[in-house]
C-alpha cells in the first residue's frame, strides 16, 4: 500500500480524474472530499462490506429462506 502524508487542504490525485482532498482533521476524525467522475462509485468501505456480506449470506441460506417465506403468513401492513 502506498502511504502518503498530507495536511488539511492538500490533495492526492488518482489517475487522470480523481482528486482526494483532506479537508479537516479534528478529534481523531478526518474529513475527506472526493472529486471523481459520475460513473465512479464511492462508498464508505464498511457500508459496502455490509451489503456484500449480506448478499453472500442471503445466497448461502437461500433454501432455508425460500422454505421460510413459503411457509409463513404475511400480514400486509401497508393498509394499516
Amino acid at each position: 500500500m502506498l502511504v502518503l502524508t498530507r495536511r488539511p487542504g492538500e490533495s492526492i490525485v488518482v489517475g487522470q480524474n480523481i482528486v482526494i482532498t483532506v479537508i479537516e482533521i479534528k478529534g481523531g476524525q478526518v474529513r475527506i472530499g472526493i472529486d471523481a467522475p459520475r460513473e465512479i462509485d464511492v462508498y464508505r468501505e464498511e457500508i459496502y462490506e455490509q451489503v456484500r456480506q449480506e448478499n453472500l449470506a442471503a445466497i448461502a441460506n437461500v433454501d432455508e429462506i425460500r422454505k421460510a417465506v413459503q411457509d409463513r403468513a404475511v400480514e400486509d401492513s401497508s393498509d394499516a
Partner: protein
Amino acid sequence: MDQPEHKALLEKALHFPDGLPGLPELEHFVIVELREDGAFQQLQSLDNVDVSMIVCVPWLFFPEYAPVLSDIEQTELDLETADDAVLFVPVSIDTESRQMFLNLLGPFVVNAKTKVGRQLVLTGTEYTTRTLIELPVV
C-alpha cells in the same frame, strides 16, 4: 439448456451491468414468483445456476420506506420518473433464531422498461442490512 431457450430467457432477464456487491461477474437474473400472493420472489442468476436469493417488495412490511436515489443512479438507470422503477430488497434469515430480515440498505432498483438494474448501497441513511420482519409460522 439449448441456445434458443437460453436466448429467450435472457431477453426477459434483468441486466445488472455492474453485477452485485460480492458477485461482480453475475449480470443476468430472472425473477421467479414464490407465492400466489406475490409477496416473495426468487432472484435467480442466469450466469450461475447455483446462485439465487430471495427478495421482496419492502413496502409490504415497511410502508414508510423511502430510499433516495442519487442523480447519478437515476441517470445510470435512465429513470425519468419513479413509475419506471421497480424496487425490491434481499431477504435473510438468522439460521439459529430463525428470525428474518430485510436488507433495506441494499435495495435493487430496476428500470421496468429497459430491464437494466443495479443493487444500490444507500448513503446518508439510517436503514440497515438487517431489519427484522414479523413472519408468523402458519
